[in-house]
């Protein structure tokens, strides 16, 4: 029973691979490496681990087991608010994480309570959104109504972005430290959100939910429009005349969103306050002011596409940044994949070597395992000229990597008694290990 107590506390990730405080961190130059520089950076690892945990997290609730095809519902407090009433929707509303029975993946479920539809067709309007796939729009999956929650609820299903927060929560949290906002970050948001909006508008869909409460941060500096399609259903009409107006409003909302973020205390201004006056009184640089002015001013033929032409140089910059970060992720992924292979390789070597009743110190007794044993020593038991152990993790990784790839480079393996030596390539050694391992399987 006492064993259950610790689990109430979150893990301290720094026990996993401790990083000293900045002033204690050794300065590494050129050829120097330490365990941190050899593996995935702690911060990234922690972020990703938290995502994994956010996806898996569940606790016992009084929620029904199954809603539609979704199970294991747990409520999320995305906006940090316990107040169920949403002024945007004029309904009580909440959001859940749940797993799909169809594919086992986690999804986010937006629930609007006690709905009453003028037309059944309203729900099918979601299909326009489900077809739209875009990196800056939280993917819409499905919509249905259900009585499983003891009322007539509308459920709209989205992809689940673990550990994501709304812009408001991210930059003005009720608890914890707010993320700092720079003008560069504002541009990044502007370009990304405009990108999402333009995709929607291209499909004839106004977004209707461009606000700091509805745009979510899913990764470092990556934002997505969320809750798309809800108002399309709630305010369903077959009259398409308001589409153009709503689209124009999206642009103004986008301008306001950036203005809100830029304001010192992150205070959304009262709706009555004229946006353009707020803009002029802000200390934003000229290029950003110009861009926002376009968004906030009424003018003929205004469109998100025209806006993107105006800010094309900023889009190009964001394009470069995101490419760089894709490259960064690719590089990290490559490294971790390597590590995965190295673990398997080390496991094989350890499976094969030092099994009881074999003397590994000579050809006669160990056969093919003799060179493997010498290789093991070569990798792990380096010494300096005085015979002192050299514990060099980077040598281990380098050698194992070469072995894993099986390159033709030759190495010199010296016998225990230092009288004879073997000259063979990593490739040959890799084959020997494979062979010994297969023999072990088939023995």
């Amino acid at each position: 029973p006492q064993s259950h107590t610790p689990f109430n506390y979150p893990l301290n990730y720094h026990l996993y691979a401790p990083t000293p405080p900045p002033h204690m961190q050794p300065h590494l130059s050129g050829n120097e490496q330490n365990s941190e520089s050899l593996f995935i950076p702690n911060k990234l690892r922690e972020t990703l681990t938290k995502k994994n945990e956010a996806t898996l997290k569940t606790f016992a609730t009084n929620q029904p087991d199954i809603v539609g095809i979704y199970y294991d519902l747990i409520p999320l407090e995305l906006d940090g608010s316990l107040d169920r009433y949403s002024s945007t929707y004029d309904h009580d509303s909440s959001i859940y994480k749940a797993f799909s029975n169809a594919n086992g993946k986690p999804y986010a479920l937006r629930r609007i309570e006690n709905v009453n539809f003028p037309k059944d067709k309203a729900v099918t309007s979601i299909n326009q959104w489900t077809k739209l796939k875009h990196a800056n729009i939280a993917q819409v999956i499905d919509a249905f109504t259900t009585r499983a929650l003891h009322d007539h609820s509308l459920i709209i299903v989205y992809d689940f972005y673990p550990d994501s927060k709304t812009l408001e929560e991210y930059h003005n949290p009720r608890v914890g430290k707010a993320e700092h906002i720079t003008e560069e970050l504002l541009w990044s948001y502007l370009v990304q959100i405009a990108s999402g909006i333009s995709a929607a508008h291209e499909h004839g869909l106004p977004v209707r939910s461009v606000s700091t409460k509805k745009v979510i941060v899913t990764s470092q500096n990556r934002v997505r429009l969320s809750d798309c399609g809800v108002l399309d259903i709630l305010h369903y009409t077959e009259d398409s005349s308001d589409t153009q107006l709503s689209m124009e409003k999206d642009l103004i909302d986008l301008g306001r969103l950036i203005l809100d973020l830029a304001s010192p205390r992150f205070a959304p201004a009262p709706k009555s306050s004229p946006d353009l006056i707020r803009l002029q009184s802000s200390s934003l640089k000229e290029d950003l002011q110009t861009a926002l002015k376009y968004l906030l001013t009424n003018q003929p033929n205004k469109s998100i596409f025209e806006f993107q032409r105006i800010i094309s140089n900023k889009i190009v910059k964001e394009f470069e940044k995101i490419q760089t970060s894709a490259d960064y992720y690719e590089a990290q992924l490559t490294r971790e994949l390597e590590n995965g292979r190295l673990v398997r390789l080390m496991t094989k070597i350890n499976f094969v070597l030092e099994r009881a009743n074999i003397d590994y110190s000579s050809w006669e007794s160990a056969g093919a395992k003799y060179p493997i044993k010498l290789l093991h020593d070569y990798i792990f038991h380096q010494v300096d000229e005085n015979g002192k152990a050299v514990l060099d993790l980077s040598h281990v990784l380098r050698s194992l990597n070469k072995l894993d790839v099986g390159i033709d480079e030759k190495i010199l393996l010296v016998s225990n008694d230092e009288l004879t030596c073997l000259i063979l390539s990593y490739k040959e050694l890799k084959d020997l290990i494979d062979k010994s391992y297969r023999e072990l399987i088939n023995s």
Partner: protein
Amino acid sequence: LSQMSERTPLEYPSLPRSNDSYVDVDDHEVPLNSIGLPYYKENLLSAWSSQAIFRSAGTIPKNIDPTKFDDLKNIRIDNSNTVITEGQYDKEKYGRRNQAKKYVSLSNGDLGRFLSAKNVSSPLKKKVLSDDSKEQIFDIKKGNPPNAFKKLEILYSKFGVEDFDFDSYNSTYFSGLESHVDNSYTNALIQLYRFVPEFFSFLVSNLAFENLHSNDLLRELGYLYDMLVKSNGRHFRPTNFQHNLSYIPEASQLGLIKKEILASDGSSDAQRLKVFNRFLLNKISYDERKQNYHSQRPNSFDKIFGIEIEVQKRHSFSSNSLRDLEIHHSLDAFLTDNHFKQLLQRNINPTIITFLEASMSRIEQIKNEHGAFEQSKIVRKIPPVLSVDLHLSQAHIKSIRTTKDWLKAKFYAARSNNGYVLVESLRNQDTSEFYQQYELVGFVAEISGEIDKDKHLVTFLQTYDETNRTKNWFLFNDFLVLPIAEEEALNLQYWWKTPVTLVYRNTSTDSKFCYDGWKYNINDEILYRDHFAAGTREGKRIEYELLTKEEAPNPGTLVAIDAEFVIIEEEQFELKSNGSRSLLKPSYQTLARVSVLRGDEGPKFGVPFIDDYVVVHEPIHDYLTSFSGIEPGDLDPQTSNKPLVEREVVYRKLWLLLNLGCVFVGHGLTNDFRTINISVPKSQVRDTAVFFYKGQRILSLRYLAYSLLNKRVQTGNHDSIEDAHTALLIYKEYEILKSNGSFEETLNT
């Protein structure tokens, strides 16, 4: 709300793969984090301190050449097709098992070797070798040859070769030889013979004779030895000797020519040196006979080096026999495999004496198209100087390393019917009169590195210090010369040290170094006549007036000199992105013109008596016309209208002036002398560039002429007569300023 506060512990849903299922190692579809960690509140075992820093990234891997190991055999594993090479491991050479290779950064340049980086106020100030750097170059580390034995590189800063701190490699009065020169592997042998008094005196005395044959090594080696002595501990560059050697067809055929390139071609210098040894001695013998052909002088070289060998061929199936006497100049020393095996069976470790004795009487069975012969080669007479080339197998080398005192500093030789009997020491006083004592002068050794490219030749030499009456050993490694203990010099137990060529000399007869042997009967005729490479004075522009016998130079005679050069090979440099330019090799210049003027007061003051243009046989890369005044065609006997002579002619003239005691006046003579390849003692040099040396700046001739003489010079192309004349006038002005005490004042204005 009450529900929320009573949260039950976190749970995790079951995963697609159960934790308990068997997972194959090669099943890459199972991520390793499909198995979780228990809850933790302490550091994980897998945590590594970030203070543990690994420095091996960027370490240059060892190259492994499988053929370099002994007792190689292929091992077939478990009757499969996998074959693995196994060899013998030499721990001394390669270090401990699994010894981590140290990281060495390539970007830390060796600035310490430049004078300009040493805050030395004048380039002429001699730096004494500090104890620190001494230790650095002579630190015998276990397993590796000490730095002093390794191949040394000359580094060039932007100031050229003069900036390299040669002196830190040599604090003795013996001159080292520079390494960046063609055939530099021969340096080891040149130094070896330099310390054989019989040979040295023979060569230097021979310089008295006028010998203008082309490619004559007898003369060139004589010049070289004279210059080495005159250099008095400063480094010397044997360009003229090597130039002559390179143009001898036979040397090329024997593969002795090794152009100075930055990368080695991989062939063994030790092997090449032994061939060179035989070639050199034969060539000098030949050159002497050629030189003395028309005179009645006796040949003396063969008396110093000649080994008389009786060769007898006996037909196996008849009593026919042929007897012949051959003269060799060096002894090829080796043991046959059979002989070696027999010795080992009798538990006898052969020493150098065993090798020598066996090589002095040898019987071989020969089979060829003429039938089967028994051939015997018996040494009937060993010369005063015995030059020995060692031919060693791997087994021999191994036995040398394990034999203490393999190399003997002396032995005693007595003639017998079957060659010679050699003993290490004389036990029986009665027979001592039959024995002659031979002492080791020195030997060339091959120093190996871990890879073949590092192989290199050095010389160990014993010298006799006449003032202290002591014998001292020295290491000669190109421009490095260091005293070394006798035990260390003779120690051959290191894996990296293998003897190549040795010289013993008979100490029964005392022989001394005769440093001025050229003095007697010196022939200075060349100073008083023309000796053109082609044609006569006719049609040539002659701007000089030959010296007359009445003007014969004496010690102290003042002459003004200036030389012009052309470039055969341009300089080699490397550029870096930080804008730095590093010189790898200065341009190869060759002498194109020398002017020498009368410098003593008198009616002919300033009148040239030498103005020789020099034939250049190589293709010329750059005539440097604006500096040298040399035009294309000037140096070709077919087209030139200039007084054109072969290089050995002008060199003999200059050498005579030097040895007759002339004092040379000129501006910036260091480079002139270096390129002419002459070493002039300081007492015979008056260099105006040195007198007017200010701060770090060398003042140009043009500037000095303008400010001191109010004279404009070098307005067009340079002319060596004009420049020598200007330097002479500046020197005269200097003397005046110096004598009236206003020199310092003038220099500072």
